[in-house]
């Protein structure tokens, strides 16, 4: 691919999803975008790029954007954050919200649903302590394709073996042919909505807990700071933010501060 084509595509991606693509990732453009070109009857990437030059077809651009996202996820990813949520964060919230008895959680890059469903399982496991509580898990992602999969709650044998304890598989899943489907009682706890983090999300209400994991790594510093700044605005002063293992607020924003002893967890500053 020539440099002008690369620059055109990478500027589109940066603008539409925040993704920063370096030239060493050119192969990714090729492997992921050629199928999109083919689907539209074009020979390859060059035709796709020239069609974009001629007219900015929204459907093509959004296909390209979705195709370039990395959607890998697993149940209870990294384990620790979910333990921290259950053992440290949840008990405090149950105490501080005891009068209102409401709890709102946002998964800001939910991908195929493993993260919101893991949180839903944790809440379900703690149901005895939460009688009479109204809990909401709102799960959003830029990509409609992953949201469809998330809603179906259907996972392959490989996917249910990455991070999900076998007891939870038995308790919360049903076997559907070769696949495993998470039970309707868990599915019903999560609301899915398409949302681009680059766009305004101020209208979603406030969230006591935000999981924004393994998405900021794809953005540049300014975009990270900007997204985190707007996230802090929709959280109460005692709200908690969970980031991915390779992500931090340090050196990025002063709207959040690390919580002593809890890695990957940040409090509203």
């Amino acid at each position, binding site marked *: 691919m020539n440099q002008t084509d690369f620059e055109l595509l990478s500027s589109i991606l940066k603008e539409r999803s925040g993704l920063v693509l370096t030239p060493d990732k050119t192969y990714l453009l090729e492997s992921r975008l050629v199928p999109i070109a083919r689907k539209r009857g074009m020979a390859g990437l060059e035709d796709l790029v020239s069609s974009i030059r001629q007219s900015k077809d929204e459907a093509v651009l959004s296909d390209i954007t979705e195709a370039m996202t990395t959607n890998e996820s697993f149940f209870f990813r990294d384990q620790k954050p979910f333990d921290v949520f259950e053992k440290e964060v949840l008990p405090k919230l149950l105490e501080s919200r005891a009068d209102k008895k409401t709890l709102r959680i946002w998964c800001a890059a939910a991908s195929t649903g493993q993260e919101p469903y893991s949180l839903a399982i944790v809440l379900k496991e703690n149901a005895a302590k939460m009688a009479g509580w109204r809990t909401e898990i709102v799960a959003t992602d830029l990509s409609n394709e992953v949201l469809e999969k998330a809603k179906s709650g259907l996972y392959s*044998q490989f996917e249910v073996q990455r991070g999900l*304890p076998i007891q939870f598989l038995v308790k919360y899943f049903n076997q559907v042919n070769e696949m495993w489907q998470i039970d309707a009682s868990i599915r019903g706890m999560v609301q899915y909505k398409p949302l681009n983090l680059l766009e305004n999300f101020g209208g979603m209400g406030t969230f006591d807990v935000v999981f924004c994991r393994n998405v900021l790594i794809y953005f540049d510093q300014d975009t990270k700071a900007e997204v985190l700044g707007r996230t802090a605005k929709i959280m109460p002063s005692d709200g908690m933010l969970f980031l991915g293992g390779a992500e931090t607020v340090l050196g990025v924003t002063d709207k959040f501060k690390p919580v002593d002893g809890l890695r990957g967890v940040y409090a509203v500053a």
Partner: protein
Amino acid sequence: MKKCLVVDDSKVIRMVARRILEELNFEIEEAVDGQDALDACNRTMPDAVLLDWNMPVKSGIEFLRDLRKTDGGGDPVVVFCTTENDMSHIREAIEAGANEYIMKPFDREIIEAKFAQVGLL
């Protein structure tokens, strides 16, 4: 170093499992069926057992039931690793005292994830 007993009648599977588990710092012993495994446990109790289901002489589930009845046999963490991938087998395994359950085919990532979950890593 933790000891893991790999029980499978397939030499190939034992070899693949051994390679993965050695990289995860386990000392490996192998057994070719449930009886062989029980004998090995009676000599020295391992920390972990990676256990196939269908084997000649004595199956994995029979081994597990016997193991849990022996002195000290409650200690090893037992992870099934089998092509039996339906809910009734999984339930039966848990009831017999299995700690985790891997459905074949498996790879390094799955073994590592499952062993981490049960606190072996």
